């Protein structure tokens, strides 16, 4: 956790210093800027905060609900102007393709320090002593075995359309586990809930920031440190024959916009480019929405009112 704090604050500061460079034209203020609202709370918080910053700068903003996986064609065509929290770990090939063709612009990192890993609820440590060390998983395989996976252990992986990071780790680390694709985020959360209620064994690929980390007090398995070398050089890591025999490399969380945004709303482009939100800033807001059940609009409006000192400089730098 210490690492994240440092990183989060430094990106925030970097963003602030970048923001104070130059001001830009407002552009077409009579037309609303269309921001994509995706399916998860964190993204909605980020977007609502960004939207209120744009409104403070004098823009009209329209929030449009959009399926995360299906929205890229719309961003490329300007039917959606910006998607403000895109996770590198589960963004689709369609995005990469459109980005390579110059039809969707990558606007840089958001500032969230995301971590992916193999997670487990705390009671699992009693069922498999030796956790969080990853070597313990080898002996415990039968503890995690189920009807579908016997004699291998069961590891719940990401939904199939997000890729198969769990399967890749298992293969590279040569662990006796069978990855089961989760199908959806709801299915992953339901697994954690059921495991917590029933005190049954469970390991699953998961990520933070996510409200379930706090709600179920999830822990991550300590895999060999994930570095770029590990993914480039087979000799690195415990398995000398393959790459990727280590923990996940931190996921890049970034902002993506319609390329025409820059000319149509120059100042908005600057604001969104310098928009930054750290894990520490987002996490309590997520808790207020998902655990306490408050509406996203109210939670973000409250935050924007209380934290003028954080966002006002970015807006001022772009407009004044």
């Amino acid at each position, binding site marked *: 956790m210490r690492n994240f704090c440092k990183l989060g604050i430094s990106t925030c500061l970097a963003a602030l210093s970048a923001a104070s460079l130059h001001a830009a034209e407002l552009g077409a203020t009579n037309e609303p800027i269309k921001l994509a609202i995706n399916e998860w709370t964190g993204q909605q918080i980020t977007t609502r905060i960004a939207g209120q910053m744009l409104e403070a700068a004098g823009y009209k903003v329209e929030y449009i609900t*959009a399926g995360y996986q299906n929205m890229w064609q719309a961003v490329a065509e300007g039917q959606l102007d910006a998607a403000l929290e895109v996770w590198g770990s589960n963004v689709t090939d*369609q995005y990469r393709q459109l980005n390579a063709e110059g039809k969707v612009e990558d606007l840089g990192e958001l500032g969230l320090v995301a971590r992916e890993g193999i997670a487990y609820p705390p009671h699992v440590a009693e069922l498999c002593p030796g956790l969080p060390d990853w070597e313990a998983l080898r002996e415990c395989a039968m503890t995690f075995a189920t009807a*579908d996976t016997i004699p291998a252990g069961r590891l719940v992986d990401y*939904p199939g359309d997000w890729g198969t990071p769990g399967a890749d780790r298992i293969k590279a680390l040569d662990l006796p586990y069978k990855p089961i694709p989760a199908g*959806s985020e709801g*299915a992953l*959360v339901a697994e954690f809930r059921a495991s917590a*209620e029933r005190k049954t064994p469970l390991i699953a690929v998961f990520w933070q920031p996510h409200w379930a980390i706090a709600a179920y007090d999830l822990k991550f398995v300590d895999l060999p440190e994930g570095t770029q070398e590990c993914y480039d050089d087979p000799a690195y890591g415990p398995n000398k024959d393959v790459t990727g025999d280590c923990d996940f490399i931190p996921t890049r969380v970034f902002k993506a916009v319609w390329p025409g945004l820059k000319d149509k709303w120059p100042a908005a482009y600057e604001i969104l480019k310098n928009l930054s939100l750290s894990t520490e800033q987002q996490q309590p807001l997520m808790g207020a929405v998902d655990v306490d059940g408050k509406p996203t609009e109210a939670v973000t409006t409250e935050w924007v009112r209380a934290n003028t000192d954080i966002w006002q400089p970015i807006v001022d730098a772009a407009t004044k």
Partner: protein
Amino acid sequence: MTDISASGSVAATGGKDGTGRTGMNGMTPGVRIAFLCVLVGAICLALSPYQAWIRTWPAALTLPATEWIGAGLTTLFEFLKPAARSLARLLEYPMAGANRLLVGSPYALTIGVFTALGWHIGGIRMAALALAGLGFVLASGYWIASMNTLGLVFVSVPLALIVGGLIGVLAHEICSLRRAIETVLDIMQTVPTFAYLTPLLLLFGFGPVVGLIASVIYAAPPMARNVLLGLKRVEPDIREAAIMNGATRSQQLLLVEIPSAGRQIMVGVNQTIMAALSMVIIAAVIGGFNDIGWEVLLTMRKAAFGQSLIAGVVIVIFAILADRMSSALARDGKRHSWKVTASILLAAVVIALFQNSALPAAQDFAAFKSAAAVIDRSLGAFIAANGVILDGVKNGTMFFVLLPLRIGLEKAVLPFTWGFQWTTGISIAVFSIATVAAIVLALRNHAVAGLSLLIATGILVTGITNLPWPFVLVALGGLGWLAGGTKLSVFAVSMTGAILSIGLWEPALLSIYLCTASVLICVAVGGAIGAGCAVSENAWRVMRPVCDFLQTIPLFVFLIPVLMFFQIGEFSAFLAICAYAIVPMIRYTHHGLTSTPDELIEAAVASGASEWQVMREVRIPYSAPTILLGLNQTILYAFSMLVIAALIGTTDLGQQIYLALGQGDVGLGVAAGASMAILALVADRLIQGFAARQRHALGL
């Protein structure tokens, strides 16, 4: 809720003539086909250890069809895009209008108008239903999202009715096109909607218009089918009277035939409304506007069962209101007093005027928050208390039913599942016993049963996903020939062959396995429940609303408790499919068994048959065609549920469609969707063929 006689079923085709059928003695066609299947199966089993191509279709022969389809469609879309985009812009006007009307009107006024309408067409009961239903929607806090949804339905239903109606009239007027149109309707209903969402997105651009078009595609066929059926059934006398009076063709159609087909057409209207509503949640996957389907998706993502159940119930309420109101309109019964209607409207206007100052805003209602929390807590407590039992159920079914079906007894029987290891010796013993039994049956004049027993043994030992493809093709071809002659046989083989050649065979076999397993259970359990309801009126009174509920609640909602009980995996997918696909089996069994003509039953009773004998000798044979249609619907339902079950992590065709949707891969989406439709259509045609034979044999 759904009208059985015309529930958007895939039209009956197939076997019309007896294809060179000999008597029941000697080598009947059935025996020959069964024998051929046994032979091919045995050869494949014997050869497969040495010849890998028998089990897996050679990669060299796989056509890169998904790439071709993708490239072809993308080029085509570039060409069609300008026209499609203008259409989309055009459709935005009525949608924005309907939306503004429904979201903008004070809720008191909307509820009042629906209550007044309910009173007018159905008296106090319907008015109370509308008031209570919409009251629940308002109290749940989903009013605005619901009105967004309703706005979409208000535009999509008339569009679907117009499109469907025109298709139906066209099919009726031009006989040579009828078969082609019926096939197109089948395709519109069997290709999973998820499969064409990506192409629609590319064509029409992002937004609710895509959902609108998708729901028109899905909801138009029931209208078309019912219009066609209604026009076909117009009495010849009426038709002739119109001709004798010198009416032109269009006068005949508009002034005489369509009005006299009115009742059947109203059934189509009802079915179309229901289909459009059931699409709501699927369209929400794309987003574009904040509708009730999106709310269900959000709660589903948090695995918040209580809240998603409430959002789901809101959709059920709309479905029930739409169903009851439109079928009340279809029955042209007496209309109720205008005075009461007017006073309800007046009261609504008065309340609406004071709404802003006296009542809370629509989005401030949240009456069921605590109820949702209670549901969630009790679900958790139930799981914690019964975990061991739930696990026992799951493991038992997995070990003894699902795994053997999927990978065969030879791989599923292991020391830590069954307590012993399956060996080649056991295989030989099992096959020998089955062969002896088959010979005994053949000698007793049940050759088909004997050979089928052998085939079933082979499938159970090998497992569905390991079936050699030559065997599957031969078996389907043979079944097709039996059910509907050469044409159906060629259809079954060539269509299934297409799946093989585009490289989707493996997921297709997994789909077949999941469907087979769930359909078997649905037939056994659903058939029993249906029969029970046929015997006891009270049982039906309990089951009917349960069936309605299962058919209209968005299926996503069920995934959460199923997952909490049984975790991610095949068993959960299997249960979710069963929960949905069992409904037609119950309905049709009940309908078939209760619609036996009274004369038949009286005749049997008069000749001294006991109740059980009446059931076995009269009711069951008489209702066999209806029950077969129920089976047909169960299979189609199971296939349509596969895509949703992909959200619990299956790996079959449903998952391929979902992957394609996520990746924006037009080619894979269309290919997998087409494969799914092929499997459903082949199963449909085979069963329709056998049902037609059975009806023929009964002289119906």
